[in-house]
């Protein structure tokens, strides 16, 4: 089974090495076998040519006796026994007519005398001559119902015999040529594949930059291989639909905001310009509650599709200072106060300034509502991107620590002035910022909310 590779490149490399391995074995072997066959053929041809020449000097007497009369030059060729060529001739009765061997024996055992030419190597020969490697042939010569066998052998180790040496050397040399070529091909292939998948790598980089806040970007289709193009097109189409969905959601909240707020504004202005101040005052507090609820519901709806631009850097200290300034009149109207503490230098975090303002504002508003008259709500900035909001109220029972961030959750449902959405909005904003929010009761009384944001990379280094 093929191992599972995560990268196309490593998969190609693996398969390529496999193919190279097989080719490196199969190709030289095939060539060697082919060459060997050709060499054997050549040797057979040589031996047969010898036999043909010998047969010219072989004659049959009218009595049916074989007679061999070799000229001197041919006798000299076979004179040295197995040093080069050896020759023996036998008749039907198995009698040796001629032998170049010292013991005047036949090269080829008579029991293997056949009607067709038989090729043999040294294993068929006499044990005494087993040291060098011989290759020979036994060719029958038929004349007038009589047969003689011309047997010719060649010592393959004789310096004059080079064909088998060439074949043996070839196998060694072919490796030096074929294997580097295969590896060169392999290297070229890697380059080709890398070039081919470069558009995909580029597309992946573009895909990484796509954020819900930057949905208008698309994957590049230029230079994209046609095999991958359908995938890229499909992703781009999905992004189109996603962007449309987000836009519809945002447009809807914007439209809903307008449609809901216009009648409220009308009502509010009518009440504010009413001559009867007593009735106006009562109606006003009703419509304020209603407006608040509508405002927070719209925020909740809007936050459904809210995302933080990862490049936006904001100064947490400055925003918290703005919140404290903004909320101070509310606190003072209730004989309470508010103070900004902690770091006075800018604390750069990644986030959306309006959303962070809103989150801190809601927690501060909650703290002002619960802190005892005459006390101060403290907003403390930490240099690691935290905001602690401390009040002097009655604190929050341990069992409610999770519940307070739920939508429409209120400890005291009879109490007006709270919609139960403020902290749910905070929780969602913090979530969108990948931050955390925790709540504790202070030993000296009251609650402590801690909002943690993510420092920008630059300020992380300096802390």
């Amino acid at each position, binding site marked *: 089974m093929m191992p599972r590779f995560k990268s196309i490149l490593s998969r190609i490399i693996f398969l390529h090495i496999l193919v190279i391995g097989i080719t490196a074995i199969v190709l030289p072997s095939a060539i060697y076998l082919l060459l060997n066959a050709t060499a054997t053929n050549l040797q057979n041809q040589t031996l047969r040519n010898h036999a043909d020449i010998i047969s010219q000097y072989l004659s049959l007497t009218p009595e049916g006796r074989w007679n061999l009369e070799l000229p001197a030059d041919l006798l000299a060729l076979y004179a040295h026994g197995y040093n080069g060529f050896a020759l023996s001739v036998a008749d039907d009765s198995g009698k040796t007519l001629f032998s170049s061997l010292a013991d005047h024996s036949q090269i080829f055992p008579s029991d293997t005398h056949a009607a067709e030419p038989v090729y043999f190597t040294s294993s068929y020969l006499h044990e005494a001559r087993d040291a060098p490697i011989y290759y020979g042939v036994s060719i029958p010569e038929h004349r007038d119902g009589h047969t003689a066998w011309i047997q010719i052998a060649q010592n393959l180790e004789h310096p004059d015999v080079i064909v088998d040496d060439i074949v043996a050397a070839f196998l060694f040399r072919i490796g030096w040529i074929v294997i580097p070529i295969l590896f060169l091909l392999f290297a070229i292939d890697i380059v080709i594949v890398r070039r081919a998948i470069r558009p995909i790598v580029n597309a992946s980089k573009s895909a990484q930059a796509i954020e819900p806040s930057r949905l208008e970007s698309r994957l590049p289709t230029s230079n994209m291989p046609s095999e991958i193009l359908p995938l890229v097109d499909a992703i781009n189409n999905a992004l189109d639909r996603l962007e449309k969905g987000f836009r519809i959601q*945002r447009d809807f*909240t*914007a439209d809903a*905001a*307008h449609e*809901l*707020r*216009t009648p*409220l*504004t*009308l*009502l*509010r*202005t*009518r009440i*504010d*310009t009413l001559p009867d101040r007593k009735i106006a005052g009562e109606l*006003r507090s009703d*419509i304020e509650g209603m*407006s608040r609820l509508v*405002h927070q519901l*719209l*925020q909740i709806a*809007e936050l459904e599709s*809210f995302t933080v631009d990862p490049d936006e850097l904001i100064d947490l200290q400055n925003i918290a*200072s703005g919140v*404290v*300034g*903004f909320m*101070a*009149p509310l606190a*003072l*109207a209730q*004989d309470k*106060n*508010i*103070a*900004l*503490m902690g770091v*006075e230098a800018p604390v750069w975090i990644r986030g*959306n*300034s*309006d*959303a962070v303002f*809103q989150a801190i504002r809601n927690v501060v508003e909650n703290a002002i509502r619960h802190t005892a008259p005459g006390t*101060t709500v403290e*907003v403390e900035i930490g240099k690691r991107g935290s905001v602690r909001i401390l009040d002097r109220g009655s604190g929050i029972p341990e069992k409610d620590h999770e519940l307070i961030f739920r939508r429409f959750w209120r400890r005291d449902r009879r109490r007006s002035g709270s919609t139960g959405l403020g902290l749910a909005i905070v929780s969602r904003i913090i979530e969108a910022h990948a931050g955390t929010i925790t709540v504790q009761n202070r030993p000296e009384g009251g609650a402590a909310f801690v909002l943690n944001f993510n420092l920008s990379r630059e300020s992380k280094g300096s802390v």
Partner: protein
Amino acid sequence: MLRFGNECAMRLLIVEDNEELAKLLSEGLVAAGFAADVVGNVGDAHQVLTTKHYSAVVLDLGLPDEDGAAVLRALRLRENPIPVLVLTARSGVYDRVAGLRDGADDYLVKPFAFEELVARIQALLRRPGHLLARLLRVGNIAFDTEARQVFLDDKPQIFQAREIAVLEILMRRSGRVVPKQLVEDQLFGLSSNAGSNAVEVYVHRLRKQLTDAGANVQIHTIRGVGYLIKEANS
């Protein structure tokens, strides 16, 4: 008795497409001492603003023909510094920054309190170069910005120049927090380097003087942020 002589001359342009609301706003603002014209779309607003002079514009962003922000951009493009107060039904995180970036001087999210609208318009008109800046009032304290004179229950008071400077900047933004840095800049300018607690010293003196004179205003310290002057809670 001090009176504003020119208050009735302030003419406002209300750009609001909801006729009912436009009528209510116009009536209310007239009752508050302004004169007001109403137009219902961006096209009319462009036309009226090029031909007539207004002290300030109350601009609704949700208009039928175009986004109300177009009016603002056109004004700023012509380098017309007329104060613009934007009314918007969108309070979302996506809209607020964009609205102010386009050059609005202030904005109110619908629904708003009518008194708040009047107060914001007055604040815009009080900016340098506008006549409403002459007399500031908080509780029983009044301050004539031209004569640089403090009145308590309409009786002139003698204050030191530095205390008067602090009082003025606080009264210009009464009910709102004035950043400490702003008070410091007002007192000493950007060049001179005053001691870090110099502002606190002057605020402390001013506070004592006001209390001694029987003023029913209070200067609150918002630690870490600044100061706020308001009528004392009764």
